[in-house]
C-alpha cells in the first residue's frame, strides 16, 4: 500500500454573519493509504464532516497543506451523502448516470457495466422511479450506485447509514464491505457509530471537538469478516468509547 493523501497542519475556521469565528478543525496531520477503509469517528460537532469535505475538495478554504499522489485527481473522487442528495427531478437511472453524463463518459460498454451494478444493488425494478417514491434504504443504494458508477479511486461517505433504520443500515454495511472487497478502492467514511466504525474500518481516526482534532488513530486488526459479538470486538468498542468520552 502507498500513501495517496497526505494532510499537514490542516485547520479550518468558520465565520458567521455576525463576524464571530469558530475553529472547526485544528492542526490535523494525516495520511490515507491506497485501498484502505479509513474511518473518522467522533461525536457530533467535532469537525469530521468538515474534514471529509476538505479532503474531497468540497470545502476549498482551509489552512495547511494537502498533497495527493500524482495519479489521484478530483475526477477520481466520489461522495455518498448522509441525506442521499439525489436530484428529485431525475429518475433513479438518471441520477445514477449523472456523473458519467457530466464527464461525457457514458459509452455503451459503460452503460452495460453500470446496469450490472444497478442489478447487483437490487435497483433494476426502480430505475424509472423518482427518489421520492423510494424508501430511505433504496435511496441510499441509489446514492452508492451513483458514487460507484464513475469507477472512483476514492469514495467519501458522510454518515451514510445514520438516516436509516438499524436493519437496513446493517444490510447496507455488509453490501458496502462486499463492494469494497471486490473493487479495492479507497474508502474514507465519517460516522459517530462506534460499532459501525469497528465493523468497517482498517484504521479509525478518533476525533474530539472544540476545536476538532484527531486524538488517536487506532489500527483495527480484527480479522474480516468481523464477528460483531466477539470478545475482541466488545473490547475494542469499550476502548474507543473511553477515548471519545475522556477526550471530549
Amino acid at each position, binding site marked *: 500500500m502507498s500513501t495517496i493523501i497526505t494532510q499537514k497542519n490542516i485547520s479550518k475556521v468558520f465565520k458567521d454573519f455576525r463576524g464571530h469565528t469558530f475553529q472547526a478543525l485544528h492542526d490535523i496531520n494525516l495520511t490515507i493509504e491506497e485501498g484502505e477503509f479509513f474511518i473518522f469517528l467522533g461525536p457530533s460537532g467535532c469537525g469530521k464532516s468538515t474534514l471529509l469535505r476538505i479532503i474531497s475538495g468540497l470545502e476549498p478554504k482551509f489552512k495547511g497543506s494537502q498533497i495527493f499522489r500524482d495519479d489521484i485527481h478530483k*475526477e477520481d473522487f466520489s461522495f455518498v*451523502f448522509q441525506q442521499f*442528495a439525489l*436530484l428529485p427531478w431525475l429518475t433513479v437511472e*438518471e441520477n445514477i448516470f*449523472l456523473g458519467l453524463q457530466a464527464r461525457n463518459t457514458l459509452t455503451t460498454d459503460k452503460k452495460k457495466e453500470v446496469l450490472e451494478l444497478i442489478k447487483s444493488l437490487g435497483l433494476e425494478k426502480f430505475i424509472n422511479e423518482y*427518489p421520492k417514491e423510494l424508501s430511505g434504504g433504496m435511496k441510499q443504494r441509489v446514492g452508492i450506485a451513483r458514487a460507484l458508477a*464513475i469507477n472512483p479511486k476514492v469514495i467519501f461517505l458522510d454518515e451514510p447509514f445514520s438516516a436509516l433504520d438499524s436493519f437496513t443500515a446493517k444490510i447496507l454495511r455488509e453490501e458496502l464491505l462486499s463492494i469494497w472487497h471486490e473493487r479495492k478502492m479507497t474508502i474514507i467514511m465519517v460516522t459517530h457509530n462506534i460499532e459501525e466504525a469497528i465493523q468497517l474500518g482498517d484504521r479509525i481516526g478518533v476525533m474530539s471537538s472544540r476545536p476538532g482534532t484527531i486524538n488517536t488513530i487506532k489500527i483495527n486488526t480484527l480479522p474480516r469478516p468481523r464477528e460483531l459479538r466477539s470478545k475482541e470486538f466488545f473490547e475494542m468498542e469499550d476502548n474507543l468509547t473511553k477515548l471519545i468520552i475522556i477526550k471530549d
Partner: protein
Amino acid sequence: MYISNKKHHHIVYKMHWHMIMTVFLVVTPVVFFLLFAKMTNITIYTLFTDIGISLIRMIIAFIISIILGWGLAVLFYHGKSSIIALPIFDVLQSIPTFAALPLAVMYWGKSSTTVIFFLVLAMIWPILFSVISSLKLIKNEYQEAIKIYGLKGWKLIRYFTFPASVPGLITGAIVGLGEAWEAIIATEIIIGMNTGLGPFFKSFANNPKITTFGIFGLLMIIFSINKIFLLPLLDRSHSLVEE
C-alpha cells in the same frame, strides 16, 4: 380511465373529466363572446381582433419576460455578482413604470412595441425574483453532489439549474401575467392604440353593460388560461422537486 406515463409516473389525463373540462374552458369564453357580440351589435371580427391582438402582445411579452427574467436570475442569483446585481434589480423593479411611458412613446411611437415593452416591465420582476428565490432555496447537498460529479455548462442547466428553477418560474409567471393583464388595458388606453382590449373598453366607456360583460369575458379567458396551463404546470413543478 387513466393514461399514465410510467417513466414520469404522473397521471397525464383523467381522460373523460379532463377532456370535458378542457373543452368547457375553451368553448365557454368563445360562446360567451359570440353572444356578447350579438347582444351589443359589435361585429365578431372587431371583437375577436381586439382580443386576439392583445393576446398576441401578451404572448410575445410573456416569452421575452420568461427568457430575460430566467436568464438574469440564473446569472446573478449567487456569488459576487449577486451582491451588486440584486440591489440594482430591486431598485429597478420599484421604478413606477408608467412614469417612463412618454419616453417610450417618443422612442417607439403608438406601437405594439411600446405596449410589449410595458408588459415586459410588468412581468419580468416577479419572474426574476421568484426564480432567484427557487435557486437560493436549493439544498446545499444538491450543490455538493453536482460539484463532486463535475456538472458544468449546458449539462448543468439541463440536469440541475433549469429543473430547480421551474417552480419559481411558474409562480413568477402566474404573478407576472396577473399584473400584465392590468398593464395591457392601461397601456393600450394611455398611449391611444387603435386595436386591442384597451381601445375596446375605452370606446364603450359610457356603456356600463358592455364594460361589465367585457370584464366578465376577460376574466373567463384569464380563468381558462390559468386552469388549462398555469395551475397544472405549477402542480407538476412542485411535485418534481419533492424529495
